[in-house]
């Protein structure tokens, strides 16, 4: 049998099959079917095909739902890992801030030295977070200056990285930097400016953008 020339109606037959036509379209198609044997036959064929092809491979819905839930519970862990990375970055920033302050102080001290000012005792700055820091000026623990000669680690023990010497000088560990001035030599405004610059690093995006779905285009198989 030849196809009906009313392609517009034939286009709508699957929609009639799924009962998704609006009232007027449905009425038009049904009216056409009363006079068109070809379309009536095609609709019957579509109905049979839908029935024959409706069999779906069995899948375990409970297992799939469990996998979806499991994936969601993994998400906060991933988020926690991200936060951990952020914390590490935060620690790194603190170390960078200390380094910047120390470098600034060193420059300040050098400038003073070039004008004949006495050079203050050395300051040791940890090269990475968590490493003990020794601070400089005038630094005689017994003189009541309030500023410790050797920073104590979190456990409160004296740092093993440098042994206090009788004159208040500190032996520098191989990983430390020896600089010629203390942090307290910097003006408050300079310190604040440095800290502000570090704080601006928070603008760094904390997460990669989600991968976009690959656009469909070519044949699958």
């Amino acid at each position, binding site marked *: 049998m030849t*196809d009906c020339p009313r*392609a517009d109606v*034939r*286009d709508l037959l*699957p*929609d009639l*099959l*799924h009962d*998704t036509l609006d009232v007027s379209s449905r009425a038009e198609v049904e009216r056409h079917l009363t006079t068109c044997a070809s379309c009536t036959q*095609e609709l019957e*064929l*579509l109905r*049979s*095909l*839908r*029935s*024959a*092809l*409706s*069999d*779906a*491979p*069995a*899948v*375990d*819905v409970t*297992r*799939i*739902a469990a*996998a*979806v*839930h499991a*994936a*969601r519970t993994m*998400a906060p862990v991933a988020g926690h890992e991200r936060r951990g990375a952020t914390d590490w970055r935060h620690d790194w920033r603190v170390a960078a801030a200390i380094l910047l302050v120390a470098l600034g102080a060193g420059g300040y001290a050098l400038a003073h030295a070039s004008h004949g000012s006495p050079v203050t005792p050395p300051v040791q700055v940890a090269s990475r977070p968590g490493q003990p820091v020794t601070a400089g000026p005038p630094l005689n623990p017994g003189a009541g200056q309030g500023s410790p000669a050797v920073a104590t680690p979190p456990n409160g023990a004296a740092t093993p990285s440098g042994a206090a010497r009788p004159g208040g000088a500190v032996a520098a560990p191989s990983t430390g930097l020896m600089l010629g001035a203390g942090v307290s030599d910097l003006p408050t405004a300079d310190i604040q400016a440095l800290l502000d610059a570090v704080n601006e690093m928070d603008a760094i995006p904390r997460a990669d953008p*989600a991968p*976009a*779905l*690959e*656009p*469909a*285009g*070519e*044949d*699958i*198989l």
Partner: protein
Amino acid sequence: MPEPLLTPAEPGDGALIARWEAGDERAASQLVTRHAAAVSRFVASLGARQDVEEIVQDTFVRAFASVEGFRAESSFRTWLFTIARNLVRDRARSDRTRRVTVPILEEHLATEHDALDRVVADETEDRMRSAVRELSPTQRAVFMLRVTEGLSYREIATVVGTTEGAARVHYHHAMRAIKEFLDD
């Protein structure tokens, strides 16, 4: 697999997605129950064989993991079909690249469609399945989405990655080929 019918009292996909995003895990279970059979049927129609369930599961996991990217411009089911199709395509490419499994070729699709070959109780239905298997992959995908899932041409174009007009042409060519096969 029986396909659940959506009654007027049940919440729509959009409402369930919102509930899922608010932390209601049962909403995801309802969505999986609602769409799993259709996704499974579509994946099988694309030529996936033993790993249909794995692909279906991966489809849902990916869909929910990036549900914030679902803009409701199409239905949730259409979105699932699109993800499923991409997964099947990626898997086929990977298989071809690794050359570990037998490449999925048209000849195989025409002869090894286990999902549709499982039970042949009726000779007429078997001939209909055979007629669909003879279609090209794109024609088969378009035809299945149109006839078994009731998608519009616009939705089909989204899933298959073509234009609405091309989807319409694929459908009519498929219909013509099926009629000719059955008339032989």
